[in-house]
């Protein structure tokens, strides 16, 4: 078989493969739920009800989507330039670490300045963490996929060391947990009485900023050019290495904001289970969004909805929650295939 590009794909061609991918994911998930002894036709309904079925569920989904928007943006920005940042998890914890370092009231800053300072410091921390693999790539040609993956393990152990050492909360009853941040360092709620914090607002704002950078600024054009063809970009006079470093700084900073918003908006302190793999899930979010920053918001809501919905479905139907991860992996693999099939036709030799 052979693949043939389609010159002008029709609307049907653009919509049918992704729709089939989505339906197949649902069918597979329902089948697996049936294997677990649940009613296959009720599963998707239960997931939808658990994620968008009530005000509480919607707020929960929005909260869960917030870190995913940040990590999704981090991955989307990096992948656009074909810089394979698989280390958003480490950068997330760098942001979270900065938030508890500066947010527990050790510095006598005026209260209005605390949040902006923490945000800037978090971004810098995440950027620095990703700078190391970026420099290793430029200087030594070391593949960033492996280094960013390995850094995730190193950085998590580093956090674990701090949480059992200098950062350990003396009031924490022996748990490896940092002290709580002061009220001035907390992200306020968007509406009083509703459990949704301004981290979500910041995430949406970031997505819009990234969209502007990608579509209206020289840097965005350069990143795209480097991603499409590194040699051609260099030939056209684009400083490829500088663009890669800028991409890394931006990507690392975005991922760090996920850690900041989780600590400052939701948890209030740093623990080792702050992120259930938000960094890795960001890759799925970015791919489902076709690396489009505004699409990341939608994809993050979809992914968060599956997680939140699967939690409540799991309780109701007694199906292991890992079904959510299977659904996402299936959706990811089928969706990249479907997107390709919107632009190419399979031809028999």
């Amino acid at each position: 078989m052979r693949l043939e590009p389609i010159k002008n794909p029709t609307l049907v061609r653009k919509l049918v493969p992704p729709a089939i991918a989505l339906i197949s994911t649902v069918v597979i998930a329902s089948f697996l739920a049936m294997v677990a002894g649940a009613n296959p036709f009720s599963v998707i309904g239960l997931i939808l009800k658990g994620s968008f079925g009530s005000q509480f569920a919607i707020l929960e989904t929005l909260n869960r989507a917030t870190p995913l928007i940040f990590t999704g943006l981090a991955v989307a920005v990096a992948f656009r330039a074909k810089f394979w940042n698989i280390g958003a998890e480490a950068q997330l914890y760098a942001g979270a670490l900065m938030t508890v370092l500066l947010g527990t009231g050790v510095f006598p800053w005026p209260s209005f300045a605390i949040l902006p300072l923490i945000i800037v410091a978090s971004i810098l921390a995440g950027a620095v963490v990703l700078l190391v693999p970026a420099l290793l790539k430029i200087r030594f040609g070391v593949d960033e996929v492996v280094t960013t993956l390995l850094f995730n393990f190193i950085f998590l152990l580093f956090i674990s060391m701090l949480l059992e050492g200098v950062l350990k909360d003396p009031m924490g009853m022996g748990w490896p947990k940092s002290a709580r941040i002061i009220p001035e360092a907390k992200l306020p709620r968007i509406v009083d009485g509703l459990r949704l914090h301004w981290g979500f607002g910041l995430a949406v704002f970031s997505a819009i900023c990234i969209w502007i950078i990608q579509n209206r600024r020289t840097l965005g054009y350069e990143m795209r050019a480097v991603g499409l063809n590194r040699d051609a970009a260099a030939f056209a006079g684009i400083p490829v290495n500088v663009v890669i470093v800028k991409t890394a700084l931006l990507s690392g900073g975005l991922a760090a904001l996920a850690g900041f918003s989780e600590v400052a908006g939701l948890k209030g302190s740093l623990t080792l289970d702050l992120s259930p793999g938000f960094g890795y899930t960001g890759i799925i979010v970015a791919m489902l969004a076709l690396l489009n920053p505004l699409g990341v918001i939608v994809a993050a809501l979809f992914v968060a909805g599956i997680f939140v919905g699967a939690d409540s479905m799991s309780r109701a139907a007694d199906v292991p929650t890992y079904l959510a991860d299977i659904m996402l992996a299936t959706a990811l693999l089928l969706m990249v295939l479907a997107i390709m099939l919107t632009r190419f036709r399979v031809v028999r030799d």
Partner: protein
Amino acid sequence: MEIIDILFTASFWAAAIRISSPLIFATLGELICERAGVLNLGIEGIMVAGAFAGWMAVYSGTGLWAGVCVAMLVGMLFGLLHSTLTVPFGLSQHVVGLGVTLLATSSTYYAYRLALPEVTSPPKIEAFQPYEIPILSDIPLLGPALFSQTPLTYLAFILVAVVGVVLYRTPLGLAVRAAGENPATVVAQGLSVTAIRMGSVMVGSGLMAVGGAFLTMSAFDSFFFEMVNGRGWICIALVVFGTWRPGKALLGAVLFAAFDALQIRVQQTSLGTHIPYQIFLMMPFILSIFALILMSRRAEVPAALMVPFNKGER
């Protein structure tokens, strides 16, 4: 010096060889994939799936070797999925690889929960026992280190030689290497690049799964979540460190494992108790990064690695 003493004990080298075994299987598997031109980031998840499948098969009553075969088959199935998407359809090897890792890991955990819904601690199996090779195992130091291992460890070392011979001394090996260096020559030979690459990824994934199965069937006798714990990613670094050659990859894996065995022992010395244990746990990952930096100048990357063949822009 306590550390020097450690290096001269047979139990230390026996541990190093044992720790290196799963890495050897998985590194060989990744090496075969990459030699054919396909980066397989599914390795981490495929090892998890292999660890579970082999263990579960033995727990449900098959023999140990049948369990190894089950693990291998499960690995090959994920290899089939990976290579179908990346070879004929030419999709991004990064994205598909990570997707396969996520799918393999989550479906393994799902299957574990379904198979053993009630248990708090996973059941144990009757794992592979060490087999002392007559005469050879009596050699001082070397004997207990090399020749008193479990059969799977011997298999790992034999496979290094087998893969080396097949890659460099047979037409099949030539075709695999050509698929990763210059696919056009494969076509000129009248062979199918797609078939060779898919076959290589399936065989490689099978070996990764056996590497995972070593953990549950030889190193330990039970299955735990997180038990693969980044070993797959380390194997990707080991392939680079071994400059895509089986012999050097073996050397890298043993060196790496010796370092790992050393850090476990240093942790228990008087020096080790003053250092946070996380520092020791970080060492394998830091070492891998240094190995990558060290070898980066000398790396002979297969020229067509990650390049889809004859499928135009994607």
